[in-house]
């Protein structure tokens, strides 16, 4: 299992692996938003939690079609499906690799983006915590979407249409944690709900992902 993770990380980090694209997108968004809504610190501080979560979500979305598409094209996916590893584990590892290469860097640079958007000081801890707890759900849900569309020609655009509605609860609770944190309110409830969705998604969605992957491979 660790062999698959190491291979995927190695592929992502080598030339053409697409590592850093999501990060660059996140940065560009943090630059474009003030250009669009104006430089007023008050306005930016108020919308910063939502923008940061939305940016992380869209950056995750960008790299979803890479999760299975390349392995499908070169036949690795067929070979993995016939290898002595459960497909449920394969999709979980794939989601983990996606999280490590796309979401984790976003979590790490998010305080910098918060700085650009005048995020109130009280909110930084909650920003990092909510992204850490929430992004695994984004990766797992995204892996499900990628597995659904793996053999399709118009997969890239379709996957956004399928996955974005599934991201709604995570976005709502994640942004709410940061927004409440920024106002100095208690964040326990949205944080608990956010973690609940993440744990539920991580526990159950790999079975659905493996199921649709099997359907797509036959």
């Amino acid at each position, binding site marked *: 299992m660790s062999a698959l993770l190491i291979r995927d990380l190695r592929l992502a980090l080598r030339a053409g692996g697409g590592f850093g694209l999501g990060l660059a997108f996140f940065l560009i968004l943090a630059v474009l938003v003030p250009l669009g809504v104006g430089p007023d610190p008050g306005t930016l501080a108020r919308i910063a939690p939502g923008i940061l979560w939305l940016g992380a979500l869209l950056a995750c979305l960008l790299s979803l079609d890479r999760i299975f598409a390349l392995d499908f094209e070169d036949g690795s996916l067929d070979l993995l499906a016939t290898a002595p590893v459960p497909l449920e584990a394969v999709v979980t590892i794939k989601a983990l690799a996606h999280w490590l290469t796309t979401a984790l860097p976003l979590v790490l640079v998010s305080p910098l983006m918060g700085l650009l958007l005048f995020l109130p000081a009280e909110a930084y801890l909650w920003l990092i915590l909510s992204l850490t707890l929430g992004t695994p759900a984004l990766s797992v849900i995204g892996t499900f979407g990628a597995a659904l569309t793996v053999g399709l020609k118009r997969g890239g655009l379709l996957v956004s249409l399928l996955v974005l509605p*599934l991201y*709604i609860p995570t976005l709502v609770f994640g942004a709410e944690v940061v927004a409440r944190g920024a106002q100095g309110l208690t964040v326990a409830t949205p944080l608990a709900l956010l973690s609940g969705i993440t744990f539920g998604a991580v526990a159950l969605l790999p079975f659905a992902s493996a199921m*649709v992957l099997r*359907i797509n491979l036959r």
Partner: protein
Amino acid sequence: MASLWEYANPLKFMRTTDWLLPVVSVAALVVTSIGLIWGFFFTPDDFRQGSTVKIVFLHVPAAMMAINAWVMMLVASLVWLIRRHHVSALAAKAAAPIGLTMTLIGLITGAVWGQPMWGTWWAWDPRLTSFLILLLFYLGYLALWSAIEDPDTGADLTAVLCLVGSVFALLSRYAAIFWNQGLHQGASLSLAPGTRMDWAYKAPLYTCMLGFGLIFVALVLAGTRTEIRARRMKALVARERMA
């Protein structure tokens, strides 16, 4: 090859709906007409909302069917996944555009009603938001169907999406309720036929709900028949190619 397919018989479905579809269609037409005419012309104006309240006879049944259509798709998808019943998968496919239309009718009539009542076409009320989210789920479901060429693969994938989507649609609904609390007190904008409503309204409203239910059944039957014929045509073309 019989083992896979013995559970369902499209032919029997076609033969049954040959007579069932006209019956349901006529019933839908009659009941809906009675309900709407009764509701629009033979109910008193509301003391506060005037005659605008009468859009409720379109709005509530459409909204109800928007949700029921999704529930029906969920059940049909489960039947397909468990029993491999082709007609079931095709019925789920046929129900989706109808559910989408019902959702749109619900949203549009809501906006038309909301404008004179609250002075706004749209509010991010939890209920309105939930319906907008439901619209997105319908769009995704239909987009996935249209993207897949092989009908059985399409049926399988959309069925799983419907299952997973149902869970997330439910979560989104609670998320919308939760999310709205912090912004404004949305509960006062509730669209439900409240307890104030008396039987002068309730009776025609229930008639309209029944009528919309019948319309839905008739359209799903007609749509499923179309899908079965399309499927048969596809199979015949494949057969020609094989021979």
